[in-house]
């Protein structure tokens, strides 16, 4: 892969790169060249692949990107991906009713952010959310976050952005580490990592075990907030360089989780997740200008759960079994060192077997993409790209994107990007066939509506139709968005970095459920519709100040407005009313009373101080995150979140960590997450309270 770096790191970029990262040294040309030769690994550590699918250095990209280094992850002693992402500006994990945690990015829900591991996607969004607590950070080299629609390269789901987890590659020789963290709530996180590299061959094996006793925020019922669980991750990688121009990459990952599933005092069972993926990549460099890649990726995600009655007879069972197969070919062409093309052709094949489905659906979607990354002048970088996704079950999508960065001075650069993003309707929105056995309502996927309504009608269960069946003749449209990001990077001095980014995501055809018929039992039949138009817009600000080699302070802030356009005009037209108490008379609401979408905070901020005591081989840090008030649901009956609703109060969480290295290879750590023991037992299920832990890491 080494040849890749050369391709996109042109001389100009390398220069800027060194100016920023080695600003402590003087700027003579000779010295820069020496550094370049001696610190190749350091260069690699600060490039990012997710934004362009080619190696690009972080600081020169025209897109809003964030990079989380291995060092930061190990300094803060994170265990799972949600731990570390929660501390980043503009990111917050939101608990799902199914128990998982999804990421909210630029105010967009978790189903609109694509999660990749080494460039290939994770699947298993049974209710839309991809539970990122599934992912251990024990073998991560870096986490790359690209904000703004990126469907031009990645297709579906990359509507709000992309998070790519890059796993560790082994160093020379035989080496590895053992890691263990033990903490409150009977939490045990253990890793074993073994790597080997000699000449052409590199191998790596990683095992993680994560055990939690769960926790309970509400003692009044038989249920725990989070039931005890344990999970295991196995990951192994192999790379082989046939020649210095032909390389093979093989990776396999297996994840298994078992959790108690308690629905009530009487109904108890188990819930199991099994996931594996296999990733093969063959790269070949034909010349300095041409390279090609053949990639094959396949992954399966299975979730099964059951509940038993007290007499051990089966009460209910549900399962979810999704498979993705993806062959992809891509080629890069760099006619000059100022210009790079990347193009790809691929095929997504997806199947799902699931309880409560009308059929066993299959998706087939061939796609093609092309991107041109060019520096017409030394100060100007342009990226133009587009992707076409054809699909068997919904409208085909064309996703263009353009990005530009211009260096006004050596200290100040402005950048902007516009892109189209989409999220394909998921299997549930198309094929669900579910009738609630106790209440009696029915939910039908869009493609299941016509046949199922006729069936219900024949059984005499339909009282009257609310919408005509002809509404379901056309295909359901993918949710889509146009996203705009405009920002600037400003480095006024060598130790201060500032960046600002304004964003707007215009999302169309959001899919929601709507009543399509009334049933004779007084309940409704729901189906999925392209109904809403929403937008999220705001401002993100990041700053890092290195006061000395020992002290680094960083702060971030996001301002967010996330609103439904129809709701906004309904408030403006004075159509929305509210009550002060549940049974008091209504009064008219004003335009400014509309708060916006649920679960969005107007303000989110973080503040971190990292300090190193080299004389003691010790590093310490304190980190705080804040989110302002937000609403979880409408509490005053008008179906909108307005100023008179009940809100979840704003809160901050503070963490501290101290790590000491002894005898070079041993590292001891201690820390307290959620120092002040913040909880909100009513509203926030994913904050367990104060966590005290100890850590031991042994390198060999």
């Amino acid at each position, binding site marked *: 892969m080494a040849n890749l770096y050369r391709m996109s790191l042109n001389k100009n970029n390398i220069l800027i790169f060194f100016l920023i990262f080695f600003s402590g040294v003087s700027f003579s040309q000779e010295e820069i060249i020496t550094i370049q030769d001696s610190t190749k690994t350091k260069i690699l550590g600060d490039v990012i692949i997710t934004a362009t699918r080619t190696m690009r250095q972080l600081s020169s990209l025209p897109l809003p990107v964030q990079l989380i280094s291995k060092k930061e992850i190990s300094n803060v002693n994170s265990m799972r991906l949600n731990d570390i992402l929660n501390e980043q500006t503009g990111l917050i994990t939101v608990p799902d009713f199914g128990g998982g945690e999804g990421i909210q990015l630029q105010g967009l829900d978790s189903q609109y952010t694509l999660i990749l591991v080494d460039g290939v996607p994770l699947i298993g969004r049974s209710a839309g959310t991809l539970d990122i607590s599934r992912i251990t950070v024990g073998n991560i080299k870096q986490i790359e976050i690209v904000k703004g629609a990126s469907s031009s390269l990645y297709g579906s789901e990359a509507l709000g952005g992309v998070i790519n987890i890059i796993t560790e590659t082994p160093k020379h020789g035989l080496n590895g580490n053992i890691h263990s963290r033990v903490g409150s709530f009977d939490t045990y996180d253990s890793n074993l990592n073994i790597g080997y590299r000699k000449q052409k061959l590199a191998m790596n094996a990683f095992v993680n075990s994560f055990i939690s006793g769960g926790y309970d925020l509400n003692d009044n019922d038989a249920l725990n907030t989070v039931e005890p669980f344990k999970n295991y991750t196995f990951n192994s990688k192999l790379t082989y360089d046939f020649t210095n121009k032909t390389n093979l990459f093989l990776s396999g990952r297996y994840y298994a989780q078992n959790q108690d599933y308690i629905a009530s005092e009487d109904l108890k069972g188990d819930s199991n997740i099994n996931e594996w993926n296999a990733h093969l990549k063959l790269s070949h460099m034909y010349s300095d200008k041409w390279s090609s890649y053949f990639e094959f990726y396949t992954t399966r995600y299975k979730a099964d759960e059951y509940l038993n009655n007290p007499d051990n007879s089966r009460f209910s069972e549900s399962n979810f079994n999704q498979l993705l197969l993806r062959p992809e070919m891509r080629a890069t062409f760099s006619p000059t060192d100022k210009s790079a093309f990347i193009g790809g052709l691929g095929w997504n094949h997806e199947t799902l077997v699931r309880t409560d489905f009308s059929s066993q659906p299959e998706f087939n979607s061939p796609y093609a993409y092309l991107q041109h990354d060019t520096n017409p002048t030394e100060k100007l970088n342009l990226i133009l790209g587009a992707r076409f996704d054809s699909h068997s079950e919904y409208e085909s999508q064309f996703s263009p994107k353009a990005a530009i960065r211009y260096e006004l001075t050596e200290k100040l650069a402005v950048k902007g990007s516009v892109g189209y993003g989409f999220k394909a309707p998921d299997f549930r929105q198309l094929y669900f066939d579910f009738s609630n056995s106790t209440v009696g309502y029915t939910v039908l996927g869009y493609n299941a509506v016509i046949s199922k309504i006729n069936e219900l009608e024949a059984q*005499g269960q339909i009282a009257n139709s609310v919408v005509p069946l002809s509404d379901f003749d056309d295909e359901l449209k993918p949710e889509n968005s146009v996203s705009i990001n405009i920002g600037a990077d400003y480095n006024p001095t060598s130790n201060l970095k500032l960046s600002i980014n304004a964003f707007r995501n215009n999302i169309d055809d959001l899919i929601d459920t709507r009543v399509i018929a009334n049933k004779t039992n007084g309940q409704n039949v729901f189906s999925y519709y392209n109904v809403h138009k929403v937008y999220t817009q705001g401002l993100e600000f990041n700053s890092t100040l290195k006061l000395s080699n020992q002290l680094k302070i960083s702060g971030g802030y996001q301002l967010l407005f996330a609103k439904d356009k129809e709701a906004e005009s309904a408030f403006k037209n004075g159509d929305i*009313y509210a009550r002060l108490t*549940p049974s008091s008379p*209504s*009064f008219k609401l004003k335009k400014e009373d509309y708060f916006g979408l649920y679960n969005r905070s107007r303000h989110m901020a973080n503040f971190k101080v990292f300090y190193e005591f080299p004389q003691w081989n010790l590093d310490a840090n304190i980190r705080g995150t804040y989110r302002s008030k937000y609403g979880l649901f409408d509490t005053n*009956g008008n179906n909108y979140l307005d100023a008179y609703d009940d809100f979840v109060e704003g809160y901050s969480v503070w963490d501290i960590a101290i790590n000491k290295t002894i005898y070079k290879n041993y590292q001891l750590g201690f820390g307290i997450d959620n120092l002040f023991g913040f909880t909100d037992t009513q509203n926030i299920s994913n904050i367990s309270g104060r966590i005290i832990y100890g850590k031991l890491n042994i390198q060999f």
Partner: protein
Amino acid sequence: MNFFKNHEHKMNNSNSVSKTIKFLTLALLFIGFTSCSNDNDDTPLLEVESQTISNLQATQSADYTTTPPTIIGDYIKFSFETGSTTTGNDWDIAFRGSTIIVNGGEATAQDQPARTSSTGAYIATGTLASITTVDNSLLKSDSSTNGLAIPTGSGNGWYNYDPTNHIISPIPGKIIVVKTNSGKYAKLEILSYYENSTPNDDLSNSQFYTFNYVYQPNEGVTTF
């Protein structure tokens, strides 16, 4: 004339201020109107009536042994003229569970009482105070083809149903305007579907209506 002293205002809520202002306006208009007329004319307009009805029980239950389940329960009939429930044919609207029917048009199911007048209704958006005139063109009677004048189902008529906590809550800003069985007009705002306006834990105290209404007892007057 002792109009102001006699006026009794039964609404005990934040709306009463605007209510009073409206009454004052009405009263001034009335005075203006009557002062121009012959002093011997002794047919003054009747006072507009404002009332609160609390905990009107309208129980329905479902028999799930049949397919589809059978809904059982009497429609509780209400007359605006008397301000109380009735068992006769002089009803204007009737309640059962979350369903409200009007005494006009035709039955939409066999277990409904027969319609005996040309009562109609529609749902207006506003506060009880802000709906001051009746738009006759919007009035509808129940119809076996077009459904009930006050549609059922969450978000369609007067209430929202929350599928997570199963609470039925009156949609703020929905005012039901009624042309009564004797051709007069009324408007009402449903405030609660639960006894004493507070749903209990298992929601067993549902199907108790509390509503405010304003009744215009004068023939042909379409303002409140």
